[in-house]
């Protein structure tokens, strides 16, 4: 099975999108960095394997493992029942707090305040799905293909708010003192997990062990804190 193949090859191929900061991105010298990148590096090191990043785009993360072009995905996959029909997930290795962020100056306390405001969101993300399903709240969504465009739309004023991780909202606030954004309304917290193609129970089992161990020893939390600026929820670390 796949686990044996990986061990025999002494190499693991991990699909990661390097254009979704702060999980996957390039640093100033164009080397991959980010929380997913370091998670992948930690996994490869623990298992004594060589690591190969398979660069993907949002749309090709799943087909890459389905067609065996990558072994696993570590690329901010949030777990939903719909997706679980198509691939298997490991235990969650991190979590993302999804929020709606608005300009600091704007008076927004709860959902009703968002009525009539355009909320930018990255298309097909769990935030998108969550907000789309809130039919009775009469939200106005503008969907963009990636986080960068989404953020730019909000910063430039094409949208009033953004629905994304709290991390991104805070960083936008730091980067644009002229139009500082802050988290206003909590959507929910999503679990992020490693994606594996269907039918590889042994690999899933081994990944689960690794995730549990590294949550307990705090290494995953450290990585998360480094890039997202906050701790993982305490419940996860048990």
């Amino acid at each position: 099975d796949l686990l044996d193949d990986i061990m025999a090859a002494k190499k693991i191929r991990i699909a990661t999108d390097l254009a979704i900061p702060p999980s996957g991105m390039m640093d100033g010298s164009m080397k991959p960095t980010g929380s997913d990148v370091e998670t992948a590096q930690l996994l490869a090191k623990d298992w004594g394997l060589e690591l190969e990043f398979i660069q993907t785009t949002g749309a090709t993360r799943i087909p890459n493992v389905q067609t065996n072009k990558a072994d696993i995905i570590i690329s901010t996959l949030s777990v939903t029942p719909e997706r679980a029909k198509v691939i298997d997930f490991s235990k969650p290795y991190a979590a993302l707090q999804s929020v709606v962020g608005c300009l600091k100056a704007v008076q927004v306390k709860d959902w009703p305040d968002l009525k009539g405001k355009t909320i930018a969101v990255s298309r097909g993300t769990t935030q998108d799905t969550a907000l789309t399903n809130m039919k009775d709240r009469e939200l106005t969504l503008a969907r963009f293909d990636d986080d960068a465009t989404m953020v730019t739309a909000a910063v430039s004023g094409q949208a009033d708010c953004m629905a994304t991780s709290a991390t991104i909202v805070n960083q936008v606030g730091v980067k644009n003192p002229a139009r500082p954004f802050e988290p206003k309304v909590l959507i929910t917290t999503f679990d992020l997990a490693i994606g594996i193609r269907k039918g590889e129970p042994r690999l899933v089992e081994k990944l689960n062990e690794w995730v549990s161990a590294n949550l307990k020893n705090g290494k995953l939390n450290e990585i998360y804190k480094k890039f997202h600026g906050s701790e993982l929820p305490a419940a996860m670390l048990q």
Partner: protein
Amino acid sequence: MNLILDFPAILERWPLFLDGAWLTLQLALIATLLGGVIGVVGAMGRRSSNAVLSRICTIYVEGIRNTPLLVQIFLVYFGLASLGLKFSAFTVAAAALTINVGAYTTEIIRAGFDAVPRGQIEAAEGLALSRAQIYWNVILWPGIEKVYPALTSQFVLLMLASSVTSQISAEELTAVANYVQSDTYRAFETYILVAIVYVILSLIMRAGFWALGLVIFPRRRRLGTPL
């Protein structure tokens, strides 16, 4: 193989795809109409004896044709925003596509105008027609008729290219596909379905242009020359 295609899971979202296809078609129609007008005006500008005017038209054409549509869309979308102007994604998408296809149309129609034989224009001059009358009666329609197939292809290409407007939140067909596939992770089914819809849309457009051709070129209808 551990990949099982499950089309029903995708097909049950058909209203989304239908909405997306309809928006794609609307974008294509608006850009075709306005782009066609720009093309005619631009072609006249490029042929104009006024050096400044023809220069401006040339810069427009070259600037657009040598840069990717995506960049143009970003420039319009965020450029307007930085000027404090806020329009709906649909308006901006339609405007960007119009500007883009207008440049290509300008070139095609110019070629059509240039292909009208000199003798035709002299004959019209000999009949004392004014410049505007000559343009309208002798250059415009025969010129467009000559390049009609190329125009048709260009507008079909435009329809296919409109997919990049998903980047600025226009909910057209590709945007729907991206949404559905990241929501369900069923990329194969989604892409195959979307390919089929695009082929159908392009056939619809070609048929539409063919029918329109019969209306605006009565000679074709009478003599049955293929368009």
